């Protein structure tokens, strides 16, 4: 327990420790300030990799375990059962690693920042702490605290170090996110005051009289005090016992009646709006282009590489498990939001003349895949509750988050490299960079192709998995989603042509176009190599870590659909009756029994092999 507290806390607060050290360094020692910050981010990165991936480490991440690992709970504000609790599982681990990596690279890119370096470094490091905190915390209240803490450094980083319209952009970013935060806060309170650990304990294995417990109490990682109290007095004196524990809330959402369907529906909607502001999805996306255009390069990298992922993380960690009713009823809305963002972002990117704005809109388009993938609730009676395609969508979305974190951070960095030289971003005033900066161009084309979704690079895997999983949910959305590949190719190739190809550079400050230096090459190089590795071996490098957790989550929700949701839909007094559920009314027609098999199972018996001596697979077993 103590080791977990120490290491996870250290991981989260190591950057802040760096910030404290920096606070005592004179502000004119610029190189030292940057050096300390770089060391702090590098240590955090090494720590995150070493602790979770080294087999000998005490914090080694077990890929076969689906539940939270290395978790701990310390009481913080006991009267409201608010705790300082953290843990890591297959959903958070890849995002934590992405955060530490992108922070390190962004710090490396921060050498271009020359104004108020000390303040910049301090804010940057606090930002990293907040981001890591969001991904590892298990307490909803703490989550909210980290979420809001992240807002302030970001506001200043854009508002002080940004471009000409920085104040507008910073305020826009701040207000947008704050509105999202308010929605989230409402939902948090809604859920908190309806939550009831007593009811949950009743259906769990904590209740010795329950022969078929549906919840394993130990998996919820509640504090020992709470557990002991419920063991001593299972009814809690007749009062409900509220909690902020995310895992307990999820279990309540799925296994108890603590949150009524209508309640879940509204909570889901509030949370979803809060999160898609962050993602961002159309029509709540317009803060992003402005924020990106004005933010300094490293902050754009952080923003695109990590911050946007918090929205996706919130949806998968909070919206769906806690409010499955809302998720089920709003599945089409979620998917539609994703698809609209994909198409809208791609079209908008096609029309931009500002290089950075184009990349920003490409982020809107690419994050649309994430929302779409998370939304495909395709385990229903119609599919015999086969969650495989849904599972694929969620994994595709998770992969897309990681892939986008790499490719978009890379793209913003590359735009920054050339902006630092010529101080403009007008796509129509570039050209011929290939001849002037060959290595930079090669890396750029590589990373832009990763964003284009070229197979063999990371962007493809996420996009393909998500798009392929949608057909089972809805044909129309699937076809629209697939059509985005054309638009993506259009805007990326057109940008490459205008910036890198052509005979000569025809914009201002042409003399400043010097070949990229070692620092720039290594940052872009790391991202490019990762883009290849993730694109070629997605299972080995990413999916392996998230498999168990996502399998379990999707399996749970599919089970919930079958046992809780569909019977409710079928009863006449329930809310809008869905046709898919209707099918299960009355006697099960024998036709559905056949549907219980996954689609790739044939109806024919297994003896067919004996009938087919010349079966094509014969020689493959030699």
């Amino acid at each position, binding site marked *: 327990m103590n080791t977990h507290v120490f290491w996870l806390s250290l991981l989260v607060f190591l950057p802040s420790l760096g910030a404290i050290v920096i606070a005592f360094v004179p502000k004119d020692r610029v190189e030292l300030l940057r050096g300390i910050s770089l060391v702090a981010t590098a240590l955090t990165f090494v720590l995150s990799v070493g602790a979770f991936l080294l087999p000998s480490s005490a914090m080694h991440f077990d890929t076969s375990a689906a539940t939270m690992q290395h978790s701990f709970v310390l009481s913080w504000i006991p009267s409201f059962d608010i705790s300082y609790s953290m843990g890591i599982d297959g959903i958070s681990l890849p995002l934590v690693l992405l955060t530490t990596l992108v922070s390190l690279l962004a710090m490396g890119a921060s050498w271009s920042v020359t104004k108020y370096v000390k303040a910049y470094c301090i804010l940057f490091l606090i930002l990293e702490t907040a981001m890591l905190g969001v991904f590892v915390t298990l307490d909803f209240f703490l989550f909210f605290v980290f979420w809001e803490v992240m807002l302030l450094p970001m506001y200043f980083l854009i508002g002080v170090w940004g471009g000409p319209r920085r104040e507008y952009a910073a305020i826009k970013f701040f207000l947008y996110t704050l509105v999202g935060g308010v929605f989230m806060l409402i939902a948090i309170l809604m859920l908190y005051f309806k939550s009831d650990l007593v009811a949950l304990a009743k259906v769990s294995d904590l209740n010795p009289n329950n022969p078929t417990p549906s919840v394993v109490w130990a998996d919820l990682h509640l504090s020992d005090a709470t557990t002991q109290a419920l063991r001593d007095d299972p009814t809690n004196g007749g009062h409900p016992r509220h909690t902020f524990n995310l895992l307990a809330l999820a279990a309540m959402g799925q296994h108890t009646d603590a949150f009524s369907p209508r309640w879940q529906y509204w909570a889901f909607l509030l949370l979803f709006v809060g999160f898609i502001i962050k993602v961002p999805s159309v029509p709540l996306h*317009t803060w992003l282009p402005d924020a990106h255009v004005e933010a300094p390069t490293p902050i754009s990298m952080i923003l695109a590489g990590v911050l946007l992922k918090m929205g996706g993380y919130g949806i998968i960690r909070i919206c769906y498990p806690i409010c499955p009713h809302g998720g089920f009823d709003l599945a089409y809305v979620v998917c539609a939001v994703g698809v609209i963002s994909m198409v809208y972002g791609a079209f*908008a990117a096609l029309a931009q003349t500002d290089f950075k704005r184009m990349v920003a809109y490409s982020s809107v388009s690419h994050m649309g895949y994430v929302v779409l993938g998370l939304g495909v609730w395709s385990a229903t009676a119609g599919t015999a509750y086969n969650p495989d395609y849904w599972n694929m969508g969620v994994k595709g979305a998770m992969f897309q988050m990681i892939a986008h974190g790499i490719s978009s951070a890379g793209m913003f960095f590359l735009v920054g490299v050339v902006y630092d030289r010529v101080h403009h971003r007008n796509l129509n005033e570039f050209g011929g960079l290939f001849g002037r900066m060959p290595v930079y161009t090669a890396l750029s084309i590589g990373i832009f192709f990763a964003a284009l979704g070229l197979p*063999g690079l990371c962007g493809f895997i996420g996009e393909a998995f998500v798009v392929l999983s949608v057909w*089972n949910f809805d044909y129309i959305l699937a076809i629209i989603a697939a059509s985005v*590949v054309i638009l993506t190719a259009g805007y990326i190739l057109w940008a490459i042509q205008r910036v890198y190809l052509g*005979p000569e550079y025809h914009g201002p400050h042409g003399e400043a176009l010097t070949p990229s230096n070692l620092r720039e090459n290594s940052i872009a190089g790391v991202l490019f190599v990762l883009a290849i590795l993730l694109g070629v071996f997605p*299972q080995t490098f990413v999916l392996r870590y998230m498999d168990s957790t996502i399998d379990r989550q999707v399996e749970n929700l599919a089970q919930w659909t079958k046992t809780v949701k569909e019977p409710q839909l079928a009863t006449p007094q329930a809310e809008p009756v869905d046709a898919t559920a209707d099918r299960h009314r009355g006697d099960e027609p024998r036709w559905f029994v056949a549907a219980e098999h996954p689609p790739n199972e044939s109806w024919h018996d297994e003896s067919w092999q004996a*009938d087919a001596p010349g079966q094509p697979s014969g020689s*493959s077993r030699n």
Partner: protein
Amino acid sequence: MDVSLLPTLLGVAVLLPLASFFVILTTGRRLEPAWGGYLATGAIVSAGVLALGSLGIWLTHHPVIDTGHHASEHAATSLPENPSVADDFRWRNADSETTRATTRLASFAADEEAEHPATEKAADGAPHGVDEHVSAAPVTGDYYLLGQFGQLRITIGYYIDALTVVMFCMVCLIASCIHFYAMGYMHDEEHEVTDHEVTLQNGSQLKRRGRYAQFFQYMSLFCFSMLGLVLAGNVAMVFVFWELVGICSYFLIGFYIERKSASNAANKAFIVNRIGDFGMLIGMMAIWTGLGTFSFGDIDNNDNGTIERGERGIFAQVRPPEQHHQLITPAGMALAASQDTVAHWMRQHPQATEEQRAAFLEEEATRLQLSDEADSTTGPGYWLLIVAGVGIFCGCVGKSAQFPLHVWLPDAMEGPTPVSALVHSATMVAAGVYLVGRFYPVFAPEVLLVIAVIGVITLFMAATIAITATDIKRVLAYSTVSQLGYMMLALGVGGWLAGMMHLVTHAFFKSLLFLCSGSVIHAVHTNEMTQMGGLRRKMPVTAVTMLIGCLAIAGLAIPFVVGLSGYYSKDMILEQAFSFWRSNETFWGGFFFVAAAGGAAITAFYMFRLWFMTFAGQPRDSHRYQHAHESPRVMFIPLIVLSVFAIGVAWPLPFSSLSLQGLLEQARPVGTAATVQSSLVELTWPNEHIAHLPENYDVIVKPVTLLAFCTAVGGLSLAMAMYVFGVLKPSEVRDQFSSIYRFLRNKWWFDELYQVLFVRPVHFLAGLIALFDRRWIDWLLDTLATLVTRFARLWEWLLDKRTIDALGDSLADRTYRLGLSLRGLQTGSLRQYVLFLAVGLIAVFLIISFFWSPTWAR
């Protein structure tokens, strides 16, 4: 040597060029440029050696049985020896028809009872005595996993059959020749290059460092991607390498990146291909959802030596062995469609009673059970099969530059000529045809019709455009499009073997033609045939090899005796088209054959026009003629090698039963040799062997061969008349048919049409959306923000200033005034004070006595 060695051998063959790519990529600038060429060439030659070794292993395990129909004699085998005919026989066999239906019902019932399948019930009594084919079992398996989702797996795998091995050898062979050739052709790039086509702003010509190594780096990447595509064991992997060859093509078309035309062409190629890939994605989605696998063959996932449910590949699901490899609607697709129907019905009839519902479901269940009856087109899920087929074919339309996505290929000629030869004629563009061939078992008859129609439109349209083109490479480009159309037509009318044969023969003679044209361009430094002429005297080897190429593509031969490779494959296509006509005496039936035969005449005409304009007659541009020279040895030896193959690749190997045809016949997808019918479009696709039955020799083979010969000779004679003897003046013909000439010269105005129809609307819409962001969403937000601040100000003014502050102020004011007014009481008179005291005391007592309540005291 075991066949299980093949995946390793071919896998290494795929990876060798990739290794070369990475070595050149990382060391390229420090390396002598020439080393780039050596590395890439070495890699592809080694891959070729491995491919030949694999062919050897394959042949030792699956010797080619002499099926009787040699390329030189179009006779067919007798019935019992030809299992494909047996296939056909079985298809028509009423007995088996009944058995099949019963089987399906029985197994259906078995599944219905419970999860456990009734093992004994089904499929016994099916006539499985006759074996499937000469086709040899493919070697299938996975290299590694890309992702796993419950039961679903996406992998990188392999599917190795005779077609794979043949394609491997062909690609490696042609690529090796072209690599050698390119070492000569790209020689200029070893040093600093002056690009005369690019003028800088200051009026000078562009000078840049050579990109010799880079060229070979891209070529290596291309070879890797192409070989990977051939080896691919599942649709996902096909798609991966499909896009990778696309991106290599992008790099190679845009090799001269300084030229705007080159980068435009590269973009166009990639984006047009992506349009095709969009269709392919839809097809893939239908397959993925309906079948739950992407694998072509069966994969033993759990390694227990048997193939269970869920381990079956696409082919086995679409043509189950227990259904005698007859195309059925796969269970998954039928179920998916049924479920949709039910959901739709439920939505339409919310008020339906239990009985009505039960009745409807019963009815649907019956429909589902009957979905593999002979008339499967009415069964549920059949449309998904069509979507899958058409979708996959869309990808092939893009890659193989078929109408309406053919526009990119002629522009792709912006790339260096070796690229055109390798990527844009022999291998990548043929990949579309290859995929249609590979995917053949999955295509429903209606999809075949689509393929045939697209193929015939393409072949005719491209051939007509080729007539008027004067750029030597563009003539060849349109010729390529047209020939690919032939292959598609062949596949579409049921001629799998014909299509695949033409794929291989065409690859050899068309790459030969391109390399010859490159040799010419190398010599005269122009692409325009109007500036050539008489070059045969200056470059005899090129002239002769190119003539061989022309003869091969025109399909000229001594009929019934011997001919060049194109003769065999093209005749097979025409015979199949004719056979199709005989089976369907309708407009469509005839249309395919007539267009194909007409196309053959046009082909002969434009090819010889090209040859005559280039090599015959008098030089049109004496300056260019003066400087022309035969290419160096490294360039013309590949020409000779390729011309040997262009002549003889379709001939059987002397003293053995080995022939290309026999080898390909091994790879024929199981079950596709049968005659099929479609009730939706009322057509019959005749079995490919029908044309070669002895009894049909006089009615099909003989007339078609003669006709093909006549069309080729006709085209040749017309070209001679116009460009050698001057009987017809080309300029006069041009004036005579000026409107047609303009139509053809402008390539049917496809580019302009697409510009208006698609490109501009997309840009317009994009602009609109960007505007929407700024003018609407942001406007709304900014207005909202302004309103909020205004409201805040108003609030402050109204509430803070006017109400609360005003209240406070007035209170203070009044207090002050009260104080002022009370000031008058301070008189200093003691008597007055005592009076106040007395009055106050009385008042207090009065109040207490009136209002006192004992409860107050508590």
